[in-house]
């Protein structure tokens, strides 16, 4: 029993568990003197929105990573959900959109993610297929369906719908509220429910979980459905932000961003580890890297080069830490 007590102790532990906080602070200190406008209210809001978008995806992804799986299909789920929602609205709504039609469209979009997530979970849990393969295949076929369905045409969405992204509540953008609630909910599920503990158990040792009477099938399906659901929620935001439903909603690079953020934030690719607070720290860092590099006027390819390198570095650290932690 260490004599670690009180707030100071908690902060120490926190910093030890999440070295990424130092990285973010360091990056901030480096960039602020050169580009002080990074702290302007306008940029801070831009940064917050980028964090919110990435956090939604990272939360879903981390549920799957915790079970020692991976979900590579997120961009495709987002595209399909986007075009399904937009085309529904195009057929059933006027230019502003009735609240009911908007709500129905959102529900339909969420169902797309849940359904594809269910397929993934079922394939991984019951057919014992490798998650990597199943979700990579989906990245292609689901994405393909979205393109085929729209014939690559972008579908505009009504004014009412974009309030999901551009609306404000008490002066704060709606998506920030939504994502904050989602993050709290995810934290609650992971740390305070039977299902949460089972997700970790499945990731720590599938065979041990099975022998211990954990319903591993249901647990894995739950993880992939959560991931699909989060992808759909992100699709709602992106679609509103762009005013259109599109089969090419995001670059596949988003995938690396959300996996990278989770890993940098302490989620292990080998399963069993990951907490919402850490994921948030990872997301803040990735979003900050993107934002800073943009502020410094770097080009897109520079940004992705540097981000890729940073994520690789974090993965290397994760692997080393696993090797050393045997002693602790």
């Amino acid at each position, binding site marked *: 029993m260490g004599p670690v007590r009180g707030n100071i102790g908690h902060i120490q532990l926190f910093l030890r568990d999440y070295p990424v906080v130092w990285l973010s602070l360091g990056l901030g200190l480096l960039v602020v003197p050169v580009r002080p406008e990074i702290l302007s209210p306008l940029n801070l809001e831009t940064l917050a929105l980028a964090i919110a978008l990435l956090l939604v995806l990272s939360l879903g992804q981390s549920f799957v990573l915790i079970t020692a799986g991976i979900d590579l299909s997120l961009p495709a789920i987002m595209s399909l959900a986007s075009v399904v929602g937009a085309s529904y609205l195009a057929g059933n709504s006027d230019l502003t959109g009735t609240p009911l039609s908007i709500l129905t469209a959102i529900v339909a979009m969420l169902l797309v993610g849940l359904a594809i997530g269910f397929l993934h979970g079922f394939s991984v849990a019951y057919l014992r297929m490798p998650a990597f393969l199943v979700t990579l295949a989906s990245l292609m076929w689901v994405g393909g369906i979205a393109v085929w369905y729209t014939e690559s045409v972008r579908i505009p969405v009504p004014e009412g719908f974009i309030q999901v992204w551009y609306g404000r509540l008490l002066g704060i953008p709606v998506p920030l509220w939504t994502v904050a609630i989602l993050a709290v909910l995810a934290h609650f599920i992971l740390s305070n429910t*039977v299902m949460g503990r089972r997700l970790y158990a499945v990731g720590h040792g599938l065979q*041990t979980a099975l022998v*211990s009477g*954990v319903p591993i099938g249901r647990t894995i399906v739950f993880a992939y459905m959560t991931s699909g659901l989060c992808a759909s929620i992100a699709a709602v935001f992106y679609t509103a932000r762009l005013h259109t439903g599109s089969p090419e909603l995001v670059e596949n690079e988003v995938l690396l961003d959300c996996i990278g953020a989770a890993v940098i934030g302490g989620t292990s690719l080998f399963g069993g580890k990951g907490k919402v607070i850490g994921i948030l720290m990872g997301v803040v860092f990735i979003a900050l890297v993107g934002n800073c590099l943009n502020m410094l006027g770097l080009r897109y390819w520079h940004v992705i080069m540097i981000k890729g390198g940073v994520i690789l570095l974090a993965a290397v650290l994760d692997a080393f830490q696993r090797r050393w932690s045997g002693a602790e």
Partner: protein
Amino acid sequence: MTRPVLEFEHIDKSFFGAKVLKDVSFAVRSGAIVGLVGENGAGKSTLMNILSGILTADAGWIKVNGIPFAPQRPDESALAGIALVHQELNLFPNLSAAENLFVADFPRQGSKWLSWIDRASLRTRASELLEQVNLDVDPGTLVEELSPGQKQLLEIAKALKGDLKIVAFDEPTTSLTQPETQQLFSIIRRLKERGVGVIYISHNLGDVMRLCDQVVVLRDGEIQAAGDKDSFTIPDVIQLMVGRELETLFPRRRNTPQDVPVLQVRHLSQPGIVHEVSFTLRRGEMLGISGLMGSGRTELARILFGLDSYERGEILVEGETVSAPSPRKCVDRGMAFLTEDRSLEGLMPSASIEENVALVGLEEFGSRFLGVLKRETLKDRVGEVVRELSVDCRRIDRQSVKTLSGGNQQKVVLGKWLLGGSRILLLDEPTRGVDVGARYEIYQKLVELADEGVSMIVISSDLEELVGLCDRILVMSRGEIRASVDRQDFDRKEMLQAAIGEERLT
């Protein structure tokens, strides 16, 4: 008398403060076969691991041809002409027989800088080796396509490479059929003629007596007796292997089992695994299952717990038939399975002690709707269980179980099932890799539980453990229950013989 090719002198070895080898000295002469016998945990495998360089001795030394020899790595012992044929097979199933034989030193052609495998030479050299062990398969056959016996022969062929001085066989016949065993013996006799010194480890005392020139009996890391095989009879050897006061290690039962059946097994059969197994476990009974590796004892437990399937038979828990058992159903009915493989099936090694102990009983601490956990209650209960079992640890919420000793790990596994409220425990090798101190604590807890009416099946290779703990012991051999012995009739010699299948029970 020929000179000794291998000498062990005053070898000591301890793990976590528990001595597993104490002042072990004996010699193997060139062209002699020495049978090394002892119960599981007597120190035979440790001694062989020291010989092969996997472990190093704390004190004492080994001499090969009179020259001191202290291997630090397995390849050093191989260079010295020492080969070990393991109980567990070390073969790559996805490679061919020939590739497995030469995986460490493929015959090569080309220059020093750029070389590739000389396939033709690989094939001819492999054929020669396979012929030596009478293994009639194409060298290109994939190992996964070989039968268990053929794999064992291949493993032996692997050992025969090079200038061989000493070969140690560790339980080589467990997966062999009778003709294959005979074949092995003729190979060993040929090695003997070549002047190789052979150490032969086996539980099958009949084989040992037939094959060996000398016998060395090991118990608790000490040599009990060593000498020409003609100076021993099988019963002598068994007596030497098992004789020890048990009262010190095993706590006394206060209650006797109640006459209430909690687990009934009727005519359970799975072809090639178990045959017509029937027995009844009573409330508060400690029922032992004895038998050698491969006798079907572990497989039986796996079937009972729904991990493996069975073709015919019936399983009743608390008088109710369990159809299509699954681990989840079994856990719901209060059953627990403490598996043989602790790190793969018992623990989540990198998770905390708390996460591990909470795993089985989790649901009881969750609300009916949405399963919201009462975290404080759960934490308190985990803490209680950890204290009750006196798990030696620093922080239950942050320390991962892989940092614990074997004994403490086993207590964590046991704690997990106790927190889950299990009433029927299937314990497979409950004290494997557990030091003596923790072993006593675990026995004490088990006896206490049995006195409170918890029923358990204890599977063990350690006959002393079964005799010390159990109310009744079933002896299994080749998938069948050969004998059921009550406590008052415990006679270890007889049971060991039943397990070995050498002689009829009298």
